[in-house]
């Protein structure tokens, strides 16, 4: 009942390490953590869509100021850590599951079945894939909204507002969740609910929180952060409409 030998353990560990290194390169981009793994990185095509590029897209491909660079670097480092943690978890899960299977077979004096092994490793990979999908979706939503948020602040400053008024464009269909409706629409379920940028949470959202989060309200959140300039409000259908030069739609919503 000795289970997996050292060589097999090491092979599994290295295979999963390589898989996730490729995934970090594909999802995040060429981050410093990949410095010593160039042989793997160079064997794959340069990815066209990464979190780093998503930030640049959301910021309209303009030159970043040092504060923006810092915010983006921190977010990218955090996303890399999430995927690295998933890699370690997957490595442990696959090794433990296969080791348990091998020990069971050894105790019973049976030989290993290729089909069983395929099923065990495949199931762990599938689980990791679902987790990776969730992480990628959540981090991409965060990249998109944080990028847009940084740009909104920039535009707000250029228009004399240090704390710009924002709202989330909501795709109102049968899939729209009640949490998105609660925080992104007024009681008429048509007019977007306005927020000051400073009110938007920078943390991950928990159901029931009083304000929306820049990271989205849930992993598959399709709502997008948008800016509303002074002078504009909404018509009866909830569409942006010019009101008057100094019209403050946020003040009107809050003070009635």
């Amino acid at each position: 009942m000795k289970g997996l030998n050292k060589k097999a353990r090491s092979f599994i560990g290295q295979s999963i390490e390589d898989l996730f290194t490729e995934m970090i390169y594909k999802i995040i981009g060429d981050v410093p953590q990949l410095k010593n793994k160039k042989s793997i990185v160079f064997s794959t095509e340069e990815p066209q869509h990464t979190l780093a590029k998503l930030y640049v897209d959301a910021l309209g491909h303009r030159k970043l100021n040092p504060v923006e660079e810092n915010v983006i670097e921190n977010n990218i480092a955090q996303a890399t850590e999430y995927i690295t943690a998933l890699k370690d978890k997957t490595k442990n899960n696959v090794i433990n599951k296969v080791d348990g299977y091998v020990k069971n077979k050894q105790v019973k004096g049976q030989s290993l079945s290729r089909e069983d092994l395929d099923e065990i490793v495949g199931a762990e990979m599938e689980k990791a894939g679902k987790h990776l999908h969730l992480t990628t979706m959540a981090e991409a939503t965060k990249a998109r909204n944080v990028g847009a948020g940084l740009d909104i602040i920039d535009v707000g400053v250029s228009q004399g507002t240090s704390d710009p008024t924002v709202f989330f464009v909501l795709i109102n269909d049968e899939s729209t969740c009640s949490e998105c409706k609660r925080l992104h629409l007024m009681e008429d379920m048509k007019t977007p609910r306005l927020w000051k940028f400073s009110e938007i949470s920078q943390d991950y959202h928990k159901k029931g929180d009083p304000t929306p989060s820049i990271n989205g309200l849930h992993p598959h959140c399709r709502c997008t952060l948008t800016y509303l300039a002074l002078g504009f409000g909404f018509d009866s259908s909830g569409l942006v409409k010019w009101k008057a030069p100094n019209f403050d739609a946020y003040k009107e919503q809050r003070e009635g």
Partner: protein
Amino acid sequence: MVSNMQRAYQLGYVKGAQDQEQESLMMEMQAQQNPQIDPNTGLPIDPGQMGQELPGQQMAAVQGQGDELDNSLDELEGMMSKSEKDIDHDKIKELLSNIRIKGDNLKNSAMLKSSDPKKLKLPIMKDRVRKIGAMKNLSDQKKAAVTAQARLVEGAMDKFKGSSMEKTMAIVNEIVEQEGKE
């Protein structure tokens, strides 16, 4: 993040922001301080220059151009809060073209006098167009990012599916091979 940005702005990191802000403040001050414009409604106040109105036909033409500009702006503003799938990009191009042509015509119209309502509304319209421009740019970037996000997630998951199958096969082969050796 807001306080960081404010700090960055104070330190002059936000390039061009000061000039743009100054322009914006001047525009707003102009609109606010111009005694011929009602600060509450944004509509011109009759300057009392009775008898200097344009002849009926010319006035109607100017009014028509102004109204068309208003309508195009209204339609464009309506697009801001629509999601990507509901947006007609050709319509946006048409509206932007209309706004540019009508705005230029109105600005250059020799028929306008300083007391004409549409001329008095021009600084407000200019401010409105400038703000729509800023919101539209943000909106375009946001929509490009939505597409990029979908491609990123889709591409990553396709890659994971293919690579994880390869790795699964390699792991199974290695374990079976190791067992054979023992």
